[in-house]
């Protein structure tokens, strides 16, 4: 029953949503499900926090390598959540102070490091080893140059090339034509995959979302 009941809920909910999409008269049914979804989403946050707590406590109790980081994570989690719940999250609150002066600079720093790693990775890996790789390299050059003002100035100085605006080359041709066509193909493929998986879930063939193997 531990598997049958969730499977039944999934199948019934899924079928209701499909029916309501085509028969708007029964929209009230989907409204009830949407409300349920909102409530469950709220609980999912609690579940996530609980899971984080258990995993980290386990690592700390076993003194796993780097367990000190788990302690820092738990202290940060409890302190931030506690300050937010009891002190509020509006400007002027302790939570907001942590957000502004701890979380924001740390997150921005982590993301900024990408620029350095991208440069290093491009130097090591971006080689025109084949015709296709060369084509990709050439396109990347044009996009990188075309997306910055200095690149536009350089492009204007190159004879023949300057007959066409680099902005037009990047926006209309590369991004709007080749890129959009490729993206659309990927999106259609992914959508067909999603439909296929959704059907398998509704029919009870795909059960991995229930966890614990089959």
């Amino acid at each position, binding site marked *: 029953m531990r598997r049958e009941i969730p499977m039944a809920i999934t199948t019934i909910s899924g079928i209701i949503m499909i029916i309501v999409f085509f028969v708007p008269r029964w929209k009230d049914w989907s409204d009830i499900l*949407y409300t349920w979804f909102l409530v469950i989403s709220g609980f999912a946050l609690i579940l996530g926090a609980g899971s984080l707590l258990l995993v980290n406590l386990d690592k700390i109790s076993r003194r796993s390598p780097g367990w000190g980081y788990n302690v820092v994570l738990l202290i940060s989690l409890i302190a931030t959540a506690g300050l937010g719940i009891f002190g509020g*999250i509006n400007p002027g609150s302790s939570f907001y102070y942590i957000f502004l002066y701890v979380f924001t600079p740390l997150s921005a720093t982590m993301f900024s490091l990408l620029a350095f790693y*991208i*440069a290093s990775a491009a130097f090591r890996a971006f080689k025109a080893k084949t015709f296709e790789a060369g084509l990709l390299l050439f396109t990347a050059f044009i996009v990188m140059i075309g997306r910055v003002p200095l690149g536009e100035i350089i492009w204007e100085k190159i004879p023949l090339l300057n007959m066409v605006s680099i902005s037009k080359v990047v926006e209309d041709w590369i991004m709007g034509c080749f890129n959009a066509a490729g993206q659309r193909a990927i*999106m259609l493929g992914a959508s067909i995959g999603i439909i296929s998986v959704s059907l398998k879930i509704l029919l009870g063939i795909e059960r991995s979302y229930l966890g614990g193997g089959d």
Partner: protein
Amino acid sequence: MTDNTETKTGAKANIIDILKNVDRRYIFLFILLAVIIPILFPLNLPIGTSAPVRNIYDFVEDLPEGSVILMSFDYSPSTEIELDPAAEALLRHAFRKKHKVIGIALWPMGLSQAQRVFAKIEKEFPEVEQGKDYVNLGYKAGGSVILMGLKEGFAKIFPTDDKDTPIADLPLMNKVKDISNVDLVVSLSAGVPGIKEYVAIVNTQFGKPVAGACTAVSAPEMYTFLDSGQLLGLMGGLKGAAEYEQLLQKPGNASLGMDAQSIVHIVIVLFIIFSNVVYFMDEHQKKQAALK
């Protein structure tokens, strides 16, 4: 004679090996300098504008006074360097044109991002009042389901604003009951849920005009929606925000950052060219050695 040739070939191979295995810390140093120097000594490079950005600007410009714009803050601090300038420029434009703005967030940290952006831009417009000219309804978990619920009404999903004021006490929300009262929706998005969900639900199902601002890395994905007309405009990365600032004739952080981004892009292109030259020299040498 043979010894000399071998010595020369050996020395060349050595140089190529050194060039092939440049310590990445030198690359990091170049990138660091490429970022810092233009910030300390701005080049003030001219910034051109592109059609996807102009489309948003023109749409906001042409909206009648008092129109309602929904801004969705779907990002967190890690991407604020690209999306905060876009949010600020758009909000500045909306307040300048005396439009009403509703802020919501599909990402948990979007609430605080919105608070910060509203607080900053509000100072430039003393006549603007929270509750009357703009509201920040905050974050709600649920992604696509939240967007579906916007058709049923804001009050159902967001019973209070970020300061716990009941939605019924907010003068702006007494006029704006649901998504049908909104004239433009802009998702400032760093991922999922974000622009794609707004396109699929708010534009395709509810027929509302949707525009977006996203990180440069995710901008290529959005061109298919621009092409289909489901997205009326797009501010892609810092460049998109800088273009909007130029259209507003109020350069801000994005315009300032474009100098650094320009130099970094050129430095990376030069690095790639250099590494390819070394690669082809190495390949040539290997072929020569194989022939011998």
